[in-house]
């Protein structure tokens, strides 16, 4: 017996469809069998009833069976015609099984491609920032000023505020720690060393990464989504020259300036605590701070900000230009840019610490 016949109820809806399904389960369809659904009595079919039919056809397919409809008429026939495309495809789309090796390989290829794109962008950006203008190939100076204003001048407030507060907190906490030893004046030294080597640069760069890094990524990503990047390339303009180079140079110029401001305000934070709370003499604290300043520390902090600036600008541009998909892509890439910025900054930090204090001594 290669056919099983079932007569559909007069009204095929969610409940009666479920009944039909149960009857079918009793019949135990085996491979190669065909289920014939007789619609001669059916006068009514709603969308949930239709959905039951789709469920049934999926089950049959899993058991290796087939389904045929018969004697449909009137409105029911019209409706069945509309749902036929859904009946003829298996709904439970099985995601393609991906082997572990395949997965690893796929990821490696994606990561490799991304690294290659990033290197390409770096080379392009450095060319158009340094060599291009030297060879007289043009640089958008007007845009540079705009960017410097946006990235530098407008960030002064927040950078100073954050550094000042951090300075205050660090002074507060370290003074508490050394209270019992009576060497609270050393807090001034600790502030100078800590902020010059590490904290001012990192704090400033974190603020700028969150502010400017995100802005760069979002701006370029939106431009990509709105075909502005294509339009530029279509006019034969180089994206690295036109968009990336001004941002890169602007940040490389501005971040060290912000760092200087950040260092000064953070030290004043410590100063406020030392002079007004710990009641040290103004000049004593001042001299102690200056005595702790070493050229090597300051140089390290300064060079680090330049490395941070390059990283923030290029990572922002890279992620912005890689965007795919609409507004959601812009959001994803912006987030990614900031996370990558901060991660890469910490990596750069480790490299600098190792070079300056372990290799150079």
């Amino acid at each position, binding site marked *: 017996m290669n056919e099983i016949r079932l007569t559909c109820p007069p009204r095929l809806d969610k409940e009666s469809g479920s009944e039909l399904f149960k009857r079918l389960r009793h019949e135990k369809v085996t491979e190669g069998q065909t289920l014939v659904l007789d619609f001669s009595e059916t006068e009514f079919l709603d969308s949930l009833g239709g959905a039951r039919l789709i469920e049934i*056809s999926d089950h049959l397919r899993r058991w290796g069976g087939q*389904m045929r409809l018969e004697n449909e008429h009137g409105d029911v026939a019209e409706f069945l015609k509309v749902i036929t495309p859904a009946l003829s495809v298996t709904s439970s789309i099985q995601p393609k099984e991906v082997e572990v090796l395949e997965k690893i390989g796929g990821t490696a290829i994606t990561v490799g491609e991304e690294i290659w794109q990033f290197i390409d962008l770096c080379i392009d950006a450095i060319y158009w920032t340094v060599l291009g203008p030297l060879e007289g190939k043009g640089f958008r100076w007007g845009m540079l000023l705009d960017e410097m204003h946006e990235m530098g001048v407008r960030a002064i407030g927040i950078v100073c505020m954050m550094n000042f507060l951090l300075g205050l907190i660090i002074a507060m906490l370290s003074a508490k720690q050394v209270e019992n030893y009576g060497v609270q004046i050393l807090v001034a030294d600790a502030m100078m060393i800590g902020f010059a080597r590490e904290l001012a640069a990192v704090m400033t760069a974190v603020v700028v990464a969150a502010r400017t890094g995100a802005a760069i990524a979002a701006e370029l990503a939106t431009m990509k989504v709105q075909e*502005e990047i294509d339009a*530029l390339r279509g006019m*034969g303009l180089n994206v690295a020259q036109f968009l990336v180079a001004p941002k890169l140079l602007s940040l490389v110029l501005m971040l060290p300036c912000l760092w200087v401001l950040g260092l000064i305000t953070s030290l004043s934070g410590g100063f406020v605590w030392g002079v007004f709370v710990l009641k040290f003499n103004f000049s004593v604290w001042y001299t102690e701070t200056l005595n702790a300043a070493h050229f090597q520390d300051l140089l390290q902090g300064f060079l680090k900000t330049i490395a941070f600036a390059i990283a923030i600008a290029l990572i922002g541009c890279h992620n912005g230009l890689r965007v795919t998909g609409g507004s959601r892509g812009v959001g994803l890439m912006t987030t990614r840019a900031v996370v990558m910025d901060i991660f890469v900054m910490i990596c750069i930090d480790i490299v600098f610490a190792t070079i300056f204090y372990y290799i150079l001594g």
Partner: protein
Amino acid sequence: MNTKDNHTIIEVRDLVTHYGETQILDHVSLAVPRGTVYVIIGGSGCGKTTLLKHMCGLLKPSSGQILYQGEDIVPMEEDDLAKMQRSIGIAFQTSGLLNSMTVGDNVALPLREYGNMDEPLIQAVVRMKLGLVGLADMAHLMPDELSGGMRKRAGLARAIALDPPLVYFDEPSAGLDPIMACGLDELILDLRRMLGITFVIVTHELDSIRKIADRILMLDRGTVIFDGTMEDVERTETERVRQFFERRPDEYIVQRTI
């Protein structure tokens, strides 16, 4: 250069292209005669915009040739490609105007980069080009202050800023009201007549096609299924083409055995 080359401004030979592993275009060939309005049609997602982006060198194909004025642009280095792109105007679907500058600066952008002109002359050219598209007094506005139709026209003004012999226009009338769309069609025809510009246009607005197309190419799932004039369309036997022009939906394929 032989006579054939003089008649053909851009030619595509056996273009094959993939996004990842999905094949988008399958051996597409076409030739655009000089001074015509060449319309590329096809259902959504059939590869029209992709084809256009290949024809201006924004994407590299998997294989095939694209000959612009007889020269293959596929193997070109960046510098040569940029030179070729300067002689093509591209008006994008979403206008592609840079949102960070005024409409006037947008039109002036290619002039400032390549035009080798002084600023007063640039301003004059900008006014003239914006005047051509009916936006003469809008130069000081930012793109987001314009309506959709105005933005498209401003995009067109930028595309023709350097007097290119060839202009690509992606979906000129999509999302415009009939009056605006019709106006844009007139504009395209005027520009072709006055400036002798060859247009390659991607669209699926039937009325617009009937009005402006000298030659029509239809793509379906990445292959060319029709290439001919509007009269050829009336006579064609190809079901898909007839369906497109008669605005018939895909019929449900009634499968009795599932």
